[in-house]
C-alpha cells in the first residue's frame, strides 16, 4: 500500500508504542494467567486495525452479495468476532496450525487467503480458493484445515493435527476452535481425554458468542463456564472483544503448549452481529437492544481505534485512510467475485482422489461421464 502524507501530522508526532491494561482472565487449574498489561506498537496497531476492518467489510459485502442471491446456500458471518481470529493469528507463527468450524471467513483471511479468493469461493467461481468446489464452509490454505461443516467434528481433527506436530517434533501447535454450541458435543470430550492423556500440543478454543443458532448458552449447557469444561485441562476465560486480550492469552497458551505441558483450553467471550447464518435474522432469540449495546460498548474495531487515538498511536485521518483503502480492496474483490467465470463443467469430477491416474466418473446417467484428474 502506498503511503500518503497526512497533511496535518508528521509521523514523528506519533508514539512508537503504548502500554494498556487489559482484563484479567479467569483461570481454571492454573496458578498464573496471561499478563494484564499489553504493549502495542504503532505498527502492530495499524496492522490489527487494517486486518479487522478488512474482515468486517468483507463479511458485510458477503451479506450484500447473499441478499442479491449471488452467494448461495449457507453463509455464516463473523462480524463482531474479528478480535478473536486476529488476536489468535498475531500470537502464533505461520508454521503453527489452525482449524475451525464453518464461521471461517475471518480465519481464512487471517491465515493468508486474499479477499478476492474468499469472495470468489463464496460466489462459486473458478478463482475461488477451493476452485468453487467448497463454498463458504470449506476454505483451506497452508496450515489451515478449514472450514468444517459438521458441528464439533473439527475438534478431534485438530487434536490429530497436534499429534502430528508432536510426532514430527518441530515445536508447532494446533489451535482447535469450536463454538458454545459445539461445546456440548461428545466427541469433544473424547478428544479432551486423549489430548490430555497423550499431552498433545493442542490449544482448544471455545468462541462463545452466547448463542448456538437460536439457543442461548443458558438453555443449552448445564455449565456455561466453557473454560472449565475441559475438566483436567487447564483453562482461561478471555475477553474476546479485545484483540490485545486475545493476543496475550494466546501467547500464554502457546508458551504452555510448546513447553510440552499438554493441551490447554481458552474460552473467548465474543459476539456475532449477524444471526447464525444468512437465513437467520438473529432477532427472534435476542433483542435489538442487546445487539446495539454490544456494538456501541464493545465493538472490537472501535475499541482498538479509541485506544490508538487516545494514546497517540495513530490519527483519525490515518485510520480513515485505511478504511478507504479497505473499502476499495473489498470492492475490487467483489468485482472479481461477480465477474470471474464459474468453474468449467469438465472439472466436476476432478480431485476426488489425490495423486491418482485419471479415471472416469459417472454423471447423472450411464452415458454422461466426467474425467477425474487431480
Amino acid at each position, binding site marked *: 500500500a502506498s503511503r500518503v502524507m497526512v497533511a496535518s501530522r508528521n509521523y514523528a508526532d506519533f508514539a512508537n508504542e503504548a502500554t494498556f491494561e487489559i482484563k484479567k482472565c479467569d483461570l481454571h487449574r492454573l496458578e498464573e494467567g496471561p499478563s494484564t498489561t499489553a504493549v502495542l506498537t504503532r505498527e502492530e496497531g495499524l496492522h490489527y486495525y487494517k486486518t479487522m476492518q478488512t474482515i468486517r467489510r468483507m463479511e458485510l459485502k458477503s451479506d450484500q452479495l447473499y441478499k442479491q442471491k449471488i452467494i448461495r446456500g449457507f453463509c455464516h458471518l463473523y462480524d463482531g468476532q474479528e478480535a478473536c481470529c486476529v488476536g489468535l493469528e498475531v500470537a502464533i507463527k505461520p508454521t503453527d*496450525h489452525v*482449524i475451525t468450524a464453518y464461521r471461517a471467513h475471518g480465519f481464512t483471511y487471517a491465515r493468508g487467503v486474499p479477499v478476492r479468493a474468499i469472495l470468489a469461493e463464496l460466489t462459486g467461481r473458478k478463482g475461488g480458493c*477451493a*476452485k*468453487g*468446489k*467448497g463454498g463458504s464452509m*470449506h476454505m*483451506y*490454505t497452508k496450515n489451515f*484445515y*478449514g472450514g*468444517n*461443516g*459438521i458441528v464439533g*467434528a473439527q*475438534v*478431534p*481433527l*485438530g*487434536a*490429530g*493435527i*497436534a*499429534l*502430528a*506436530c508432536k*510426532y*514430527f517434533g518441530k515445536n508447532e501447535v*494446533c489451535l482447535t476452535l469450536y463454538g458454545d454450541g459445539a461445546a456440548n458435543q*461428545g*466427541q469433544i470430550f*473424547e*478428544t479432551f*481425554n*486423549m489430548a490430555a*492423556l*497423550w499431552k498433545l500440543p493442542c490449544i482448544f478454543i471455545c468462541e462463545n458468542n452466547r448463542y448456538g443458532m437460536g439457543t442461548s448458552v443458558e438453555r443449552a449447557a448445564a455449565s456455561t463456564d466453557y473454560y472449565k469444561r475441559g475438566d483436567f485441562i487447564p483453562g482461561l476465560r478471555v475477553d474476546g472483544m479485545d484483540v490485545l486480550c486475545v493476543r496475550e492469552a494466546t501467547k500464554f497458551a502457546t508458551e504452555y503448549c510448546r513447553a510440552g505441558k499438554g493441551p490447554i483450553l481458552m474460552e473467548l467471550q465474543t459476539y456475532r452481529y449477524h444471526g447464525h447464518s444468512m437465513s437467520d435474522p438473529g432477532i427472534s432469540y435476542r433483542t435489538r437492544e442487546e445487539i446495539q449495546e454490544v456494538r456501541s460498548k464493545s465493538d472490537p474495531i472501535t475499541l482498538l481505534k479509541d485506544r490508538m487515538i487516545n494514546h497517540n498511536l495513530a490519527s483519525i485521518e490515518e485510520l480513515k485512510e485505511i478504511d478507504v483503502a479497505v473499502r476499495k480492496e473489498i470492492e475490487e474483490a467483489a468485482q472479481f467475485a461477480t465477474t470471474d467465470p464459474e468453474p468449467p463443467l469438465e472439472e466436476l469430477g*476432478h*480431485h*476426488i*482422489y*489425490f*495423486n*491418482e491416474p485419471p*479415471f472416469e*466418473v459417472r454423471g447423472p446417467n*450411464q452415458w454422461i461421464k466426467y474425467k477425474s484428474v*487431480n
Partner: protein
Amino acid sequence: QVTVRDALNQALDEELERDERVFLLGEEVAQYDGAYKISRGLWKKFGDKRIIDTPISEMGFTGIAVGAAMAGLRPVCEFMTFNFSMQAIDQVINSAAKTCYMSAGSIAVPIVFRGPNGASAGVAAQHSQCFAAWYGHCPGLKVVSPWSSEDAKGLLKTSIRDDNPVVMLENELLYGVPFEMSEEAQSKDFLVPIGKAKVERQGTHVTLVSHSRPVGHCLEAAAVLAKEGVECEVINLRTIRPMDIETIEASVVKTNHLVTVEGGWPQFGVGAEICARIMEGPAFNYLDAPAVRVTGADVPMPYAKILEDNCIPQVKDIIFAVKKTLNI
C-alpha cells in the same frame, strides 16, 4: 503357507519400517498385541510413538487419525470391528472421504481404516454387520475386501502407500486360515493393486463373483459342481470401490451366466450394484438368464447356531443358485 493374520502382520511390520510417517492406532493394538493379534509384536518392536493404544472413543480417535493424516502422517486406524466404525462414520465420510474434493486437491488424507467386517460366529446382531455397501457407496473412499493371505498382505501394503482414505474390510473368520503364498508374495515390495479383481478359477458355464470369505465358499461350490460337469469361473473382487466391472463383463461375455455372492444384506448391496452395472454394459446382451444374487438373509443376525448358519450364504445356497440360473 501363511495365515491371513500373519500376512497382515507382515504387511504392517514392513510398512512401518519402510515409512516413518506410518503409525497404527486403535483399541488394544499395542500392549495387548491386538484384539485379534493382527498387530502382535509390533509395539515391542516400534514402541509407543508408532503403535498407539486408544481409549474406547471411536469418534474421537478416528477424528484424531484423520487430522493426523491431513497434517502429513500416514495413520492406520483399526476398528476392533467395523460395527464400531458406525460411531465414527461421520469422520470417515465427511472428514476423510470428502476433503480432497472440497479442498480442490489441496488437502490429502492418506489414511487406512481397517478391521474385521461382517459375520463372525455367534456374536449376534450388533457385531455381525457387513459394511461393504455402506462404504462402497461413497465417492472419495477406496474400499478393499481381501480373501486370501496374498490379498491381505498386498492390499494392506498398497492401501498404506495410497494417498487416499482406504477402508479395508477384513474378516475375523479368515484370520486363522492358512493360504499358499508364493516367494514373490512374501517379498517386501509385494503389492496387490486396488481396483483390479482376480480370477481365482477359470470356467465356462457360469461366472461367480464374490468378495472376502464367500470367495472360499464359491470355490468349494465350484469343486462340487465340477463333478457334475458344470465349470464355474470364480472371480475374487478384491476391491469394492473402484469396482473392476470390466473383469466381470469379460467373464459374463464368456459364460453367459452370472451369480453374485456376498455376506451382506441383499438390499442395496454389492451384488445389486454388479447386476445394475452389467445391465448397463456390453455383457447384458450375452446373458442367457437374469443375473442372480446370493446374499446374507434379510434379517439382523440371530444367535442360535442353526439360525445363524442359515443367515449366511452357504455352499449349498451357491450351488442351488447356479443350478437355477443354468436351469439344471
